[in-house]
């Protein structure tokens, strides 16, 4: 069963895939090559993950897996946000380019790549380098150095808060929620 662009499971019996919605100003889709180009205010939403960019090129392989490359105008960065309400956690990623691999469900942020984990609206873990890869399935991320990194000598830079602090923040947030107050929002990063 195929569609314009079918999101496919990775074949290990995982449950149903989330729907993917892509909003943009214009779209060009070629049925023969199964490629799509979305341009202008592109917003891609896939389950809890949202990505915004200026242009998104998607290609579908024979098995229906999608591969996408998102780019932005000079000076801006592609913005990725993944929410985990159960842990009051929001992951925010930035990069001059983003590559999405539907088969492995990974997102690569490339050049001036930065990934921040917010809990209860406050930044806890930060990782930056030339390339940061976020694995949606295992909820893990890895960073690679290189000339595209903002850090000195193109190195990777990582700040990780102790587990206890994170648990404390989650505890505080659940109390906040229990009291009916609103959860602090994550600051918009650019």
């Amino acid at each position, binding site marked *: 069963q195929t569609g*314009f662009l079918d*999101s496919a499971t990775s074949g290990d019996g995982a449950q*149903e895939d989330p729907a993917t919605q*892509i*909003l943009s100003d214009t779209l*060009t889709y070629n049925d023969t090559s199964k490629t799509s180009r979305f341009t202008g205010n592109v917003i891609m939403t896939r389950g809890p993950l949202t990505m915004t960019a200026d242009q998104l090129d998607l290609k579908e392989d024979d098995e229906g897996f999608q591969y996408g490359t998102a780019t932005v105008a000079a000076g801006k960065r592609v913005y990725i946000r993944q929410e985990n309400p159960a842990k009051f956690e929001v992951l925010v990623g930035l990069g001059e380019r983003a590559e999405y691999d539907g088969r492995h469900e990974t997102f690569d942020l490339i050049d001036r790549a930065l990934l921040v984990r917010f809990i209860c609206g406050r930044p806890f873990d930060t990782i930056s380098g030339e390339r940061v890869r976020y694995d949606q399935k295992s909820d893990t991320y890895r960073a690679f150095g290189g000339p595209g990194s903002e850090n000195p000598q193109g190195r990777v830079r990582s700040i990780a808060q102790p587990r206890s602090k994170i648990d404390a923040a989650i505890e505080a947030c659940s109390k906040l929620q229990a009291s009916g107050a609103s959860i602090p929002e994550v600051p918009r990063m650019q």
Partner: protein
Amino acid sequence: MKDRLPTIASILILIALVIGTWIAAEYTTRAVELDAPARATHDPDTWARNVTIIRTNETGLAYNRLEGDYMEHFPDDDSYEIQLPRAFNMQPDSPVTVATSNTAAILDQGDRILMKGDAVMIRLGDEQTEPLNITSDEIHLLAEEDVAYTELPAVAVRGMSRLSGTGMHYDNKTRELNVYKSSDLEIAPRMTQEGSESE
């Protein structure tokens, strides 16, 4: 001077005759309508029931078939209006497209068919590709170029995916679909691996 008088008089008479004839001819042509002008009002001059119009290319191959329950021709703009039309486009090397709507107008000497009112265009599928279905209030069909387009809001459905936007252009030769404004693509999730095997 006296002997020139007859000459001058005859010349004057001749001139008068020529002018008089010209006036008479002008009056006659204006009085009698040789070729009645085309009617200014948009009234049909021809109508037919259960019509089929087939267009062929230079090799005689039929590439467009337009059927309708009732058709009228309007001389003022040389257009046709068809009730309950069904338009089939069968260009070589391209999948067949079928379009239906409440009414259709044949314009531009037949080059453009404007499907109006619940217009639907379906590009048939094949082993690799799902059918593509575009719906809008109006869809223009360019039979020769094998193109369908609309400037109005439209929805395209293909397999489990749904695409909406304002202004769509589908070229059946290149198989390219363009959305010009507010594109909104919804890609449905695929079932679990077991689910998809049981289908």
